[in-house]
C-alpha cells in the first residue's frame, strides 16, 4: 500500500473521501450525536424546551425491571435470529453452489425476500400464520398435526420463535448472498488438492469450505447481529411486543418510552445504552474472533 503523503495525493484523498464524509456527517453523525445528547436532558414529547439533568435518565432507566427483561428478550431474539440466518445462509449457500438445473431461478427466489419491503413481509406472515384465516394452520389442521389452530404470533411460548423464523426468512437471504459470493471465489484447485489426498465431501467441507467461509460468516454474524439487535419495524408491525411482553425487545421498549410515555430524554438514554452494548460486544467479538490470524494459514 502506498504510504507517500504528497500534496497531490492529499488532494485525491480529500476529493475521494469528501463526498462520503459530508453525506455521513449530515445524515448520520449529526443526528446521532443530537439524539445521544438528548439522553442528558429532561425532554418530553410535548415540549420543545429541555433541561439538562445529567445522568438522571440513566439512573431511572437502569432501575427498571422492564429494561432488563427487554435486554433478555433482545439477546434471545438476536442470537436466535442471527443463528437462523447463518444456518439458512449455509444451507442454501452450499446447496445452490452446486450445478443443478434451475439454479439461477432458485437463487433469485432465495435472495428475493431481502429486496421486499419489511412491511410486506410482516403483513404476509401475519396473514399466513393467522390462527383463523392463515393457510399454515389450515394445512396443519387438515393433516391432523394439531387439533386447534396455533396462534403463532399470539401464543406466549411461540411468538418469539415465530418472529425469529420470520426475520430468518427475510434476512437469511443476505447471508445466502454473501456466502454464495464467497464460495464462488474459492479457488477450485483447493478442492482438487483435497480430493487427491483422498478427502470426501465432508472433509472437503471441513478442511476447505469452512475455513474459507470463516471470515464471511463472522462478518455476517457481526453485521446482522448489529442490525437484528436494533430491529424495530418487523416486530412492531407484527406483534408490537406482545403477547404480554413476550416479544418486547429493547428497541420496542425504548419506542414505548418515547411514544407511549412521551419521554424522549429517557428513550434517548435507552438508545445510548443500546449503542454502548453494541460497541462493547463488537469490541469483544473482535478480540476473540479476530479472523486475521488464521486466514493466512488457510491460504
Amino acid at each position, binding site marked *: 500500500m502506498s504510504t507517500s503523503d504528497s500534496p497531490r495525493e492529499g488532494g485525491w484523498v480529500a476529493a475521494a473521501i469528501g463526498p462520503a*464524509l459530508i453525506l455521513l456527517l449530515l445524515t448520520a453523525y449529526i443526528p446521532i450525536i443530537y439524539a445521544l445528547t*438528548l439522553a442528558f436532558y429532561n425532554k418530553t414529547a410535548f415540549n420543545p424546551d429541555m433541561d439538562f439533568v445529567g445522568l438522571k435518565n440513566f439512573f431511572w432507566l437502569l432501575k427498571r425491571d422492564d429494561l432488563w427483561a427487554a435486554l433478555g428478550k433482545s439477546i434471545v431474539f438476536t442470537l436466535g435470529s442471527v443463528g437462523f440466518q447463518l444456518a439458512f445462509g449455509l444451507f442454501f449457500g452450499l446447496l445452490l453452489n452446486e450445478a443443478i438445473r434451475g439454479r439461477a431461478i*432458485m437463487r433469485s*427466489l432465495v435472495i428475493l425476500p431481502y429486496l*421486499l*419491503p419489511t412491511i410486506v413481509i410482516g403483513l404476509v406472515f401475519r396473514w399466513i400464520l393467522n390462527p383463523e384465516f392463515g393457510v399454515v394452520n389450515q394445512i396443519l389442521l387438515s393433516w391432523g398435526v394439531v387439533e386447534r389452530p396455533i396462534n403463532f404470533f399470539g401464543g406466549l411460548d411461540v411468538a418469539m420463535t415465530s418472529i425469529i423464523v420470520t426475520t430468518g426468512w427475510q434476512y437469511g437471504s443476505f447471508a445466502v448472498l454473501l456466502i454464495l459470493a464467497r464460495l464462488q471465489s474459492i479457488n477450485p484447485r483447493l478442492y482438487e488438492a483435497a480430493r487427491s489426498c483422498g478427502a470426501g465431501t465432508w472433509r472437503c467441507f471441513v478442511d476447505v469450505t469452512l475455513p474459507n467461509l470463516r*471470515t*464471511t460468516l463472522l462478518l455476517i454474524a457481526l453485521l446482522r447481529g448489529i442490525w437484528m439487535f436494533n430491529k424495530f419495524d418487523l416486530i412492531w408491525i407484527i406483534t408490537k411486543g406482545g403477547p404480554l411482553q413476550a416479544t418486547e425487545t429493547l428497541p420496542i421498549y425504548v419506542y414505548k418510552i418515547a411514544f407511549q410515555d412521551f419521554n424522549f430524554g429517557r428513550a434517548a438514554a435507552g438508545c445510548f445504552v443500546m449503542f454502548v452494548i453494541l460497541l462493547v460486544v463488537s469490541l469483544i467479538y473482535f478480540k476473540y474472533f479476530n479472523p486475521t490470524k488464521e486466514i493466512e494459514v488457510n491460504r
Partner: protein
Amino acid sequence: MTAHFVVRWMRFMWLSVGMIFVVFPLYWMATTALTPRAELFKPPYPLLRTSYSLENLIELLSATQFLTFLKNSLIVAAGAVCINVVAATLAGYALSRFAFRGKNLFAAATLWTYMFPPILLAIPLYLMFSTLGMRNSYSGLILAHVSISLPLNIWIMWQYFQVVPRSLEEAAWTSGASRFRALCEVLLPSAMPGIISAAIFAFALSWNDFAFAFILQTDISMFTLPVGLATFVEQSAIHWGLIMASSLIVSLPTFALVFLMQRYLMRGFAIGK
C-alpha cells in the same frame, strides 16, 4: 456410483424442502392477491386456486395511489443508488489506495452508524430537514437513505478494490494515463461486480425503508411504497387484498432484477476474504 446417486438425491430432497419454505409465503401472497373479494375471509382456502380474480389488482391501480407510491419509491431508490455508487466508489478507492491520517477512524466510524438504534433519529432528522426545506422532497429522502446504505457500501467497495490488482492501474500510469483516467478506464470496469452489489444494497435499503420515509414524507403524494402500504392497514380493517396485490406487483420486477443481476452479485458481495 450409487453413493454419488444417494448424495444427489439427498441434495435434491433437502433443496426441495428448503425451497418450499422460501417459496410458499411468496406463492400464498400471489394467490391471495388473485383471490376474489368474496372468498378472502372464507377459509378453508383451496391450496391450488382455480377461480382467479383481478378485483384486488384493479382496485389497487384505480382506487388507490399505488402508482404514485411506486413512482416515488423508484425515484428515491434510483437517487440513493446513484449517490451511493459515486460516494462509495470514491471512498473505497481512497481507502484501498492511499494511506492517510484518520483512515482507520473513518472506516470504523462508518460502521458505528449502524450501532445506533434508528428509533430516535426522527426528531433531529425532522428538525434538520425542515430547516433545510427538504421535507416532502425527493432529495431529502434520498439523502436519508444514503445514510443507511453508504457505510456498508464503502466497505464493499473497499474490499473489492483490494482484490483488483494494483498492477493493472500501474500499467496504465506507465503508458501515460492520468490517475483519473486509470481509475475510470481500468479500475472501474474491473470493479463492476462490486459496484453493482453496492447498487443493489443501496436499492434494497431504500426500497425497504419505512422509518425515514414516514418522518420526512408527510404529504400523501410523496409517500413511498412502504409508507403507502401502511395506509392499507386501517384501524378498522386490514385490506389484505390490496396489500397482497401490491406485494405481488412489487415482487415481480424485483425478482427480474435479482435474476438478471445475480452473476454480478455473486462476485461483488464476496467481502470478508
